[in-house]
């Protein structure tokens, strides 16, 4: 179907996005119409529908296969170490750019009054800080009492725990029966990956409505008032992307330009849907098909990275904590900056399974104990988040890919590609 292929071309995708932005600017009545918002929701819901089975099935199957292959311990250790190092590095980068850029120092009168207007709405309500759950709740809530409830309420952390348990135990049971189950799980993953891939045909139209309603909702006053913070976060996102490019280039020798070509689809989905999870299936495909990495380890490390390592939140949190200290003239010493770096990592891990906007509230868990007043700033960050989210989500996806490249095994066995090829033929 060559006619349909046009819909997946770069011009079609950018056309949809730019058309949406123009609609949002010049026809805000249309863009803010509830139906338009619902159409965008429809597309995102379809992606979410496909992603949940992919996460569960691919974690179970690939962990079992890693166990069969006998390198599970080494592999998991490498995964955890890489994740922690990447999170701390992102956090340190956030602190560094905020210290150099000083986004919270000398706020202009205009910026202050824009913030003020945002905050006035909050005094009507009695509680302007929004703590959603405590750190203990997060950790103690990891084990689901009912795995189906975890799945139906999309409790990511619980799903991960359940899937990992399932995969580990499955990996200890040798035999034809468990091989069949692994194959079945891989088939489930493939089915939903293909469904998502098909859904990308409608991406230009989805982008049109999503970008239109997002653009129309943007408050230009807030953009102007927070310009410095927004710019810094985009600089941070850019540095993360450049760092990830370098890592991928050094590890597997793919040039940055080629990387962009391969990851194009993933990055566009990330930028427009502002959801790393929605971009995950195309990352998985790019990693195993284009970067030639071992399919099993990719299917294990990428879902884990996407779900557990929210680099975008780590960066935002680190910058925000330093921003608060600057707004309130709280002077910080070198040790304070180290504490902030670790606190931002901790808070970002606590947001696992939460949508970005809700997750921001988790920063109060570390900000308040550090003596940094967060409740007023949280409202400013919430207002700014729609503008920074696309950029930091792209950086997040890129860094996920880079950590994947670092951890995943090189693809050696030809049989995997053969299996993929035969399944392509079979289903075509």
């Amino acid at each position, binding site marked *: 179907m060559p006619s349909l292929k046009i819909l997946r071309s770069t011009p079609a995708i950018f056309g949809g996005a730019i058309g949406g932005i123009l609609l949002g600017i010049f026809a805000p009545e249309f863009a803010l119409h509830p139906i338009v918002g619902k159409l965008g929701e429809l597309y995102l819901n379809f992606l979410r529908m496909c992603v949940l089975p992919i996460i569960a099935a691919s974690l179970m199957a690939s962990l079992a296969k890693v166990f069969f292959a006998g390198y599970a311990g080494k592999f998991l250790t490498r995964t955890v170490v890489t994740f922690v190092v990447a999170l701390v590095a992102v956090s340190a980068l956030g602190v560094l750019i905020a210290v150099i850029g000083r986004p919270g120092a000398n706020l202009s*009168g205009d910026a*202050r*009054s824009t*913030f*003020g*207007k945002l*905050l*006035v709405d*909050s*005094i009507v309500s*009695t*509680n*302007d*800080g929004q703590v959603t759950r405590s750190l203990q709740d997060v950790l103690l809530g990891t084990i689901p009492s009912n795995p189906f409830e975890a799945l139906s309420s999309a409790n990511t952390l619980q799903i991960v725990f359940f899937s990992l348990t399932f995969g580990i135990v499955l990996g200890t049971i040798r035999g034809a029966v468990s091989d069949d189950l692994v194959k079945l799980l891989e088939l489930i993953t493939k089915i939903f990956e293909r469904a998502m891939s098909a859904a990308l045909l409608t991406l230009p139209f989805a982008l049109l409505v999503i970008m239109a309603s997002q653009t129309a909702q943007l408050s230009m006053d807030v953009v102007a008032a927070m310009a410095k913070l927004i710019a810094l976060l985009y600089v941070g996102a850019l540095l993360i992307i450049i760092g990830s490019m370098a890592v991928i280039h050094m590890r597997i020798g793919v040039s940055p330009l080629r990387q962009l070509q391969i990851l194009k689809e993933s990055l566009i989905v990330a930028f427009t849907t502002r959801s790393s999870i929605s971009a995950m299936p195309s990352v998985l495909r790019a990693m195993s098909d284009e970067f030639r990495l071992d399919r099993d380890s990719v299917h294990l490390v990428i879902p884990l990275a996407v779900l557990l390592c929210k680099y975008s939140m780590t960066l935002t949190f680190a910058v925000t904590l330093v921003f608060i200290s600057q*707004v*309130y*003239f*709280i*002077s*910080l*010493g070198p040790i*304070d900056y180290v*504490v902030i770096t670790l606190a931002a990592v901790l808070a970002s891990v606590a947001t696992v399974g939460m949508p970005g906007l809700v997750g921001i509230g988790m920063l109060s868990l570390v*900000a*308040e*104990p*550090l*003596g*940094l*007043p*967060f*409740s*007023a*700033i949280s409202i400013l960050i919430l207002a700014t988040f729609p503008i920074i989210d696309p950029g930091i989500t792209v950086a997040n996806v890129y860094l996920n890919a880079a950590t994947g490249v670092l951890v995943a095994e090189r693809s050696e066995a030809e049989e995997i590609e053969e299996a993929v090829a035969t399944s392509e033929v079979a289903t075509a």
Partner: protein
Amino acid sequence: MSRFPVSRITVVGALIVALTLTLTSSLASGAQRTTPTTDTTSSSRATVPVVTLDANAARVPVPASGGRIADVIAAGKLVVGVVSVDRYPFFYTDAGGNLAGSDIDLAKDIAKELGVQATFNRNATTFDGVVDLVAKGDADIGISKLSVTLPRAQKTRFTKPYIELAQGLMLNRVELTAAHADPNDLIGLANQPGRKIGAVTGTSYVGFGKQIFPAAQIVEYGDKAALFGAVINGDVLGVLYDENEIKQYIFEKPDRLIEVKVQMLAHHTDPIAISVVDPQMQYWLDTYLELKAVKLSVNDLLKKYARPEGK
């Protein structure tokens, strides 16, 4: 964590702001005091031959009738005590230089129902002073955003409240965070030995503060500019004032919400009522308030009364 909550420059800057505010407000009230005695609604009736030596006290005190209804009707005028400082939106000088506000409208309507003219006595410089005017018979009634308090109720009677203001706390966010406050128990946090809570001298909020926060230290400030300056600088943990003053301040300077948090106290209201001596007059006023269903709210008032220039 090594921490200097507020830098020296901010302190100096805020002090200058507070000073300027204090100066301008005193200048403004001085200017207002020198305006002619136009506190009567009908200048034709202002035939009171009183001369005062002090230029600042040029306001003509209008002899009251003692507050009895029959005397008020006989005199053809209702003398209403209103404190000399303006309290927007209750009583203030509008753009045209006239006395305006919800208390003024209420007083005029009461006078209209009695078939007389309202006349305003603004000799009292404090709210307690208005109650004294009524008690001494220098005013028939006092409508001046008067909080009902036990000390005041020793001097005059009060009608049923015609508006209930919430009592509000304005808290310094840095101090609040340093104290590791439980957001659900701000009163408990403020009511600890060593905590400082500010209130304006001569208002009922000094008493309210001692009552709500018996363990804390109540620090008095001369006016609201100094009061709000103190909480913004972090000199006190928080300040206690009424909903109206706090909301007005925040609506004018919303950016202050970056430094302060505002919390209305759910179980502490500030009933505002009319001060009156004569029992029959009190009964009549209560009936008036009930039949006319007078129940105001701060949000409505701030919407209804246009803010005067420069306020």
